[in-house]
């Protein structure tokens, strides 16, 4: 294979894997922000919580990595419900600042709690053999874990797309994002809908957190360190839009990987450059309402 094509394939593949991680982790944040206009800075804390669930399940209980991911997502989704019911709900009508204070406070409390129980040493997870090493697709080999990220990402996108576009509940969510008062007027219980999407978003964040361990390692500070990245994806994609989040994750993931590969000296500059350009042209993001 010619050298240039080889490089392009490398970048595209790694970028795609990275994009899938970004999408999975950020999509929940986008939908909850779009639906309720609630600024949830504790989103990263739910992701971190999912990561530690996976670590405990695999290391202490000997459960496989993939089942652990599933259990962690469901568990964190359920755990997030009382948070939404008893804490978040109080501040739906409050200003952005109060919401930010509550949720960033929760994030810091989560960091302190997990540091207390797990310590600050970065954690890793034991992967099954089929996720280690590489898979050969005939023309070249790809790292298995990244391939797994892409497959999982595509599967999730399909499921989410179907749920949003083709099911009754998806239609209700879209209606509520578009016009909440109108949706309530026609009898949609937006509060319950929000609890549901919040749990779904937190569960997906937990899945992202579990997947991130192999990429970044896991320390309690995960809760805030990568939050900027998720917020960027949401801002560039547009609040509440599945399509937007996907497009933003793809553009940012691939641009970031390209920049790191071809022009490492420019460092993290690329991703911010893209953000600035997109937001200059479309201040509400790709699919946000102006």
């Amino acid at each position, binding site marked *: 294979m010619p*050298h240039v094509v*080889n*490089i392009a394939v*490398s*970048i595209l593949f*790694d*970028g795609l*894997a*990275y994009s899938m991680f970004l999408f999975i982790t950020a999509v929940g944040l986008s939908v909850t922000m779009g639906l309720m206009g609630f600024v949830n800075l504790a989103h990263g804390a739910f992701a971190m919580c999912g990561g530690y669930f996976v670590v405990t399940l695999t290391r202490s209980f000997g459960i496989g990595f993939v089942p652990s991911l599933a259990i962690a997502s469901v568990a964190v989704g359920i755990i997030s419900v009382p948070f939404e019911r008893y804490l978040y709900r109080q501040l739906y009508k409050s200003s952005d600042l109060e919401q930010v204070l509550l949720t960033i406070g929760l994030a810091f409390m989560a*960091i302190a709690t997990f*540091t207390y129980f797990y*310590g*600050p*040493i*970065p*954690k*890793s997870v034991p992967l099954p053999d089929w996720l*280690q*090493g*590489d898979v050969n697709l005939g023309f070249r*080999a790809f*790292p*298995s*874990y*990244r391939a797994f990220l892409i497959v999982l990402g595509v599967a999730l996108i399909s499921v989410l797309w179907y749920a949003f576009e083709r099911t009754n509940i998806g239609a209700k969510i879209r209606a509520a994002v578009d016009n909440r008062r109108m949706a309530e007027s026609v009898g949609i219980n937006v509060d319950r809908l929000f609890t549901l999407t919040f749990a779904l978003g937190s569960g997906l964040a937990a899945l992202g957190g579990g997947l991130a361990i*192999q*990429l*970044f*390692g896991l*320390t*309690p*500070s*995960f809760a805030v*360190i*990568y939050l900027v990245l998720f917020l960027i994806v949401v801002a560039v994609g547009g609040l509440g839009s599945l399509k937007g989040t996907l497009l933003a994750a793809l553009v940012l993931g691939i641009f*970031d*990987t*390209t920049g*790191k*590969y071809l022009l*490492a*000296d420019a*460092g*993290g500059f690329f991703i911010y450059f893209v953000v600035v350009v997109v937001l200059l042209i479309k201040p509400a993001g790709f699919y946000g309402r102006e």
Partner: protein
Amino acid sequence: MKIFRWLGLAALAVAVGGSAQAANVKVGVVLPFSGPNADLGHQIDKAFDLYVKLHAKDIAPHTVEIIKRDEGPPTGAVAKTVTTELITNDKVQLVTGFVFSPSSIALAPVITQSKVPMIIANAGTAWITDLSPYIVRFSFSMWHPAYPMGAYAYDKVGCKTAAVAYTDFPPGKDSVEAFTTGFTKAGGKVTLSIPMGPPTQVPDFTPFLQRVKDAHPDCLYGFIPSGAHAAGIMKAYGELGLRKAGVKLIGPMDLVPDNKLQDMGDAAIGTIVMGHYARDLDNAENKAFNAEWHKAYGPDSYPDFMSAAGWDTMHAIFDTVKKLDGNLSDGAKVVDAMKGWSANGPRGHVMIDPATRDIVEDEHAMEIYRKPDGKLGEKVLATTTAVKDECKVLKVGRCK
């Protein structure tokens, strides 16, 4: 009864006189206790605490009062604020700790002005010790492991070409410069140099290492802060199959810190590092140090090279308290007392070079292998004794 009253007064006078001589030395400890690198702070903090616990009686009647502050992120900003507070408000007689080079660099003017000695337990950028006459370093300079690694990589590991990849902040640049200097001098050629982003968050290492894989040098010299970054780069290295592709991983010991080594798994096996400490180092002090560590912190907590330097740092502070009989109010005298200090510690024999106020220690080339008990360990391949900071010996770069 009168006689007893007199006796009592005399006893009181003796007690008061005695306690007037017993000094309480205030030591400010600045280490990262929060953020992604918090575990680096804990590695040194545990060594400090352990030394103080075991040796508090050695300095009687004097006592040492430790005041701890959070160094914050590796930018130096928080460290500068809290250290200045320690000096001006808490009136500490010396400050120690400092994991990150930017902290020490940012603080150098404060240290010079206040004449409160900075006793560095980690920050390794070579030229830090030149920034103030009140800085003494007990850890290492980036040149300690990186410079000899250059010649060793070319002569013994078989690296004719190498890529260098580093976290983009002062010690990263310093480490890579040291390695490149030694490697080029030996006859090797650095074909690729990749900065891998700031130390504040662990990046996705894959694009950087994919580039290395595509360029296909004999070896990859990597420098990263030895916390979460170390685990991250090792995963990417394993995942991309670089070793199978014929790219050997080499670097300073920061790549394989003892407290994360067991988690790194097979990817780490075969990595060759240059360093001054490993848990497996065979000397009496190290064995005793490890035994005390496990007794205090449990069997699953391991000391690493940072802990070893932390132990020696506190050892030197205690020796200085003894030597100056508890009077550490004059910073210049404290620094003088530390010049030429030497001891046997977990790292083996170490001393402070009186001319540079930097450490002199042995450097070991070590290979990661699987021990018979199934755990990963470090096998010493070669040892160079009494290595000085080559940056200052050669007077190159910023050490002129």
